[in-house]
């Protein structure tokens, strides 16, 4: 019986974010909030392990109340229960503070039944930091296995998990001691279709919410106060000079352009 926790985050669908070509500004209106795509694969992985080895999958998210939506999605995919960590005091948490809050929640779950595996997406598409997974693993003292693209075996008796990690141009096969934290890439699995009964069950399910008092947190380690990084300023990306349009019919324009590039010696004359 595997006790598993999957961390999921609600993010804006950045694929839907577009630039207004006239004003050159980001169009965010109507951009849907979705489950972080990598986290969906993390849920899928945990549910599949449950089907194979037996066990329980708890979906865990930190965010405002509307983040409940991604937890329902996780329940629809086969998670057994969902917990939302929500409190005004959590607002402004950077990755260090976020990993602290999530790790404390997982510790609370572990006091019920020891957790064997924690899953996270490799990174969230809004922040792209890839820091929260390693942060949780470090705080819990779990084996850290990032960029998992395959899970070869789990052996509860021997207490290990064997995975394949996706590295630059390489694949690493590594066996780690349980308990472990895995961050996953999309190659790990294909998402299953959600069945209607599962979706209905998920829609009706009760989602537990925990606030800061449920977790016995050190107030100095959460929210803005617990975040060592701060934003000094934001600004528009510097414009790149250029923008010369080469006129003419395709062939004439091509000839002009190629002559320029060859002249600049950027493309070598063989």
């Amino acid at each position, binding site marked *: 019986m595997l006790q598993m926790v999957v961390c999921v985050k609600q993010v804006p669908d950045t*694929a839907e974010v577009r630039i207004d070509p006239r004003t050159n500004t980001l169009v965010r209106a109507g951009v849907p909030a979705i489950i972080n795509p990598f986290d969906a694969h993390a849920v899928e992985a945990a549910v599949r392990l449950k089907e194979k080895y037996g066990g329980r999958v708890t979906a865990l998210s930190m965010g405002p109340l509307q983040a409940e939506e991604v937890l329902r999605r996780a329940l629809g995919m086969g998670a057994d229960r969902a917990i939302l960590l929500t409190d005004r005091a959590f607002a402004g948490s*950077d990755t260090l503070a976020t990993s602290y809050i999530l790790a404390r929640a997982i510790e609370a779950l572990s006091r019920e039944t020891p957790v064997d595996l924690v899953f996270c997406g490799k990174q969230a598409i809004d922040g792209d930091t890839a820091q929260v*997974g390693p942060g949780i693993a*470090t705080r819990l003292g779990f084996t850290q296995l990032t960029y998992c693209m395959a899970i070869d075996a789990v052996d509860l008796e021997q207490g290990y998990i064997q995975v394949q990690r996706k590295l630059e141009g390489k694949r*690493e096969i*590594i066996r780690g001691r349980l308990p472990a934290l895995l961050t996953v890439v999309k190659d790990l699995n294909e998402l299953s279709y959600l069945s209607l009964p599962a979706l209905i069950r998920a829609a009706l399910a009760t989602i537990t919410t925990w606030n800061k008092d449920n977790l016995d947190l050190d107030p100095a380690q959460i929210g803005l106060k617990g975040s060592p990084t701060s934003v*000094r300023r934001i600004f528009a990306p510097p414009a790149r000079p250029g923008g010369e349009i080469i006129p003419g019919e395709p062939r004439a324009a091509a000839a002009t352009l190629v002559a320029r590039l060859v002249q600049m010696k*950027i493309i070598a004359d063989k």
Partner: protein
Amino acid sequence: MPADTANTGYRGVWVFIEQVGGEVAPVSWELLGAGRQLADALGVELAGVLLGQGVAGLVTEAWAYGADKVYLVEDPVLGPYRTAPYARALVQLVKEYKPEILLLGATSLGRDLSGAVATSLGTGLTADCTSLTIDPETRLLEQTRPAFGGNVMATILCRRHRPQMATVRPRVMPMPSRQEDRRGELVRVDMAFNEAEARAEVIEIIEEKNKAIYLDRAEIIVAGGRGVGSKENFRLLEELAGVLGGTLGASRAAVEAGWLPPEYQVGQTGTTVRPKVYFAIGISGAIQHLVGMQGADVIVAVNNDPQAPIFKIATYGIVGDFREVVPALTAEFHRQLAPGPG
């Protein structure tokens, strides 16, 4: 648990020198170049940190790329990379020698390690910085990175905690020149490790032969986007890349359409590239794409929409149907690059 670290006593700029099997990730040298400038601005030392087994031969390389000092920890447990012993070694070195800045490459290894180390130290970590500067008044590291999908740049500070940690993607910083005879100091640090603390055993590392494309090192990239329209049409781009000895690339839209595999993707969720010439064919220029390729020396855009944002940042643009323009470019390069008179 982490509390505010007193800033006093933290001095110097460190770069983690990433090696696997004795082969150094080039981003480490790029970071020594960036670290050199930071160290000079602060008037402090630049040090490299080298962890591994049988890697002492790399110390002279680190000096040649600008390190004044190299901290070297060698142990069989550090042979294959595992998070726990690497993190412990780096944390221990930081606690003992107290650098004010620690830089790592934003590779899979660097991201795996930096997240663990920053958490243990209870300090701030800024991922994927595109610019690192020193505020002369406060001596703080100004860490600039794309935010909100790359539409804005954000400058992040880590005011009260040390070291200030940042990762930088490969090819974002220029490669410094190698100074053959430059020498520095070597600090060998002995630490005791045991295999059990690694918590993991690397069984095998398999090279992905068919995925051996090195977008981040390519000098010429011919990239296609949604406007290319089909997998078949990418053949035209392949021919252009072929005549130039370049590599194909793709926007997220082209990858999601299944026209090219994900390892060809350039942009925020793909690879950051810094080629000499980047051809953007049928790519409108979503900001998520631009952040991954605007470091190119020359950008050539081909698009039939004169309003496409890509033209704003392209060095040269041709407005037209790529199905006519790209073959014309291929033919012209073929003609103008042909050996012989003319």
